[in-house]
């Protein structure tokens, strides 16, 4: 009889133990408080995550030690500020498998989407010359999005279509909360110039098959724009390997501060693309009639930058890297599983999106039959449980799933099993309280 040794446990994708989660929680002061007389159970990280002490300290250290304008000035502080600012860019670039000159700072992910949409507009007006022809849209061209998108990855493309005469098309969502890939293969066609898609849904938790979608788009020479807001914080992201052309994500959803987001663009594309915001810090030579622009990423970073936020975001990335993105993904898959199993066991509660056994990011949105999400959220808040209620900036998706609003619990690396269980216990009391028990 041959004996096959089991493969060694790979620490890189092993879930976090409950002791590790408790240790992690010590780094997050905001989690340790009472809300309405109950220990806070923060289950709204999908909207915004909390900051570890190291992130807040990084921002404070910058203001105490190095605060100065970057990329200008010949004094010591200005050099020190520039150095940490660019080191932050390098840290974030490594985190997502990108080159430093492929990382553009923005105020948030939404601004990143708009930056690209308006650069396309400007190219459509002839700016950037022949090099930027690939971004110029006109009547007959098509932009493809999905029915699953957050409004921030939908409305900028609607507006771009309106400005250029291009047609906006969308890939439908199936009742189980996944994309209709058969339809996608029909919708993406030689007229498609851009496909904008979310990596992971902020409502149904689905992780989309980006490889398949990239293959579809690239086969017809269309560019791919990835909304990585719900993936960058929760799984190891390798943008070069995914082969997407652009991507955005926001700092505040990945343990960083508000006011900072990231746009990724393949180096050759950014080099060919005309700028969106113009002004100081993005030019080489200026005369009264015209200006020459810097190479990326500076070309897209007009005006004084979000320096302390970039540095704090790098500290957040360091925190995530030290914990291990593979381990965070595994832990959140466990939490997502616990949520899904729990909510599907409660009578009258409908889970939106994929059911038990399908991998999802650590969130679950539900509809409690007969009770509006706002009332559900109020009831949970009274028990110290913070969730998101409403349409989560995804009205078309909610409409498709037959609801106007839902209640979403979303987790992160500091979420405990107990918090999920507490959410489930109180959720089960909602229908009886509002008199819709069956």
């Amino acid at each position, binding site marked *: 009889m041959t004996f096959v040794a089991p493969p060694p446990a790979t620490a890189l994708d092993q879930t976090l133990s409950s002791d590790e989660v408790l240790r992690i929680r010590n780094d997050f002061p905001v989690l340790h408080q009472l809300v*309405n007389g109950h220990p806070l159970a923060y289950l709204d990280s999908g909207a915004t995550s909390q900051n570890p002490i190291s992130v807040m300290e990084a921002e404070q250290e910058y203001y105490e030690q190095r605060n100065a304008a970057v990329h200008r000035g010949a004094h010591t502080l200005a050099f020190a500020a520039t150095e940490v600012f660019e080191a932050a860019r390098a840290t974030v670039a490594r985190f997502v498998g990108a080159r430093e000159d492929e990382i553009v700072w923005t105020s948030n992910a939404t601004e990143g989407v708009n930056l690209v949409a308006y650069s396309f507009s400007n190219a459509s007006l002839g700016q950037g010359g022949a090099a930027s022809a690939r971004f110029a849209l006109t009547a007959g061209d098509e932009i493809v999005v999905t029915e699953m998108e957050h409004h921030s990855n939908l409305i900028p493309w609607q507006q771009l279509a309106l400005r250029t005469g291009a047609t906006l098309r969308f890939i439908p969502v199936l009742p189980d909360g996944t994309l209709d890939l058969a339809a996608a293969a029909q919708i993406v066609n030689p007229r498609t110039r851009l496909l904008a898609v979310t990596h992971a849904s902020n409502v149904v938790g689905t992780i989309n098959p980006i490889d398949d979608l990239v293959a579809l788009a690239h086969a017809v020479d269309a560019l791919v724009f990835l909304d990585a807001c719900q993936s960058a914080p929760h799984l190891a992201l390798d943008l070069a390997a995914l082969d997407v052309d652009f991507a955005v994500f926001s700092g505040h959803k990945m343990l960083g501060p508000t006011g900072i987001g990231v746009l990724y663009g393949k180096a050759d594309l950014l080099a060919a693309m005309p700028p969106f915001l113009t002004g100081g810090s993005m030019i080489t030579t200026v005369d009264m009639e015209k200006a020459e622009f810097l190479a990326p990423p500076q070309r897209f970073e007009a005006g004084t930058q979000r320096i302390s936020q970039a540095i704090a975001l790098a500290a957040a990335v360091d925190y995530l890297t030290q914990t291990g993105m593979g381990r965070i993904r595994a832990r959140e898959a466990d939490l997502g599983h616990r949520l899904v199993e729990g909510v599907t066991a409660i009578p009258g509660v409908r889970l939106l999106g994929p059911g038990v056994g399908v991998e999802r990011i650590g969130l679950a949105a539900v509809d409690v039959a007969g*009770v*509006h*999400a*706002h*009332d559900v959220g*109020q*009831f949970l808040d*009274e*028990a110290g449980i913070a969730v998101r*209620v*409403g*349409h989560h900036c995804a*009205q078309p998706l909610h409409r498709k799933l037959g609801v*106007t*609003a839902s209640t979403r619990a979303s987790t992160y690396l500091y979420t405990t099993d107990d918090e999920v269980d507490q959410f489930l*216990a*109180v959720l089960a*009391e909602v229908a009886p*309280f*509002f*008199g819709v028990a069956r």
Partner: protein
Amino acid sequence: MTSSAMQQLYQQIILDHAKSAHGAVADLGELDALTPGAPASGLATPPGLRHAQSHQVNTTCGDEITVRVGLTGTGADAQIDEFAWRGAGCSISMASASVLNDTVRGTSVAESQVMLDLFREMLRSRGTIEPDEEVFGDAAAFAGVSKYPARVKCAMLPWVAFEAALLQLR
């Protein structure tokens, strides 16, 4: 777990109104189609009725409501002879629309404006105004809502729509 705070906010009167939804109609039809004397929304419409409606949305949670009024007469003495609404939202906003129906239907514009001001004042009081049930009727049940600033908008939504509709008929 059901706390007394929750019972104070969601009083039985509110939960009952949210379910019974007085004055709610499934379909308001087209406002343009209404001519004086023509039946509106299945309601008997006296001749000389002037209609207006207002659609309001609570962007925080997506609650929405359309309130339609039909007045006879003019000025402050005009009579609210028709009142109908259609909406989707939380129990607070839906119950508030139902209570609004009971409060203003059949009153004069001047009387309804007094109630509107009192209701708004109570909701903005952060729990400091104890409403007189003689005056408020079922609307007094919303006193608990005033302690939840995030929910004041929900309770006000139908009343704001009502006020906007009246303004159009000034």
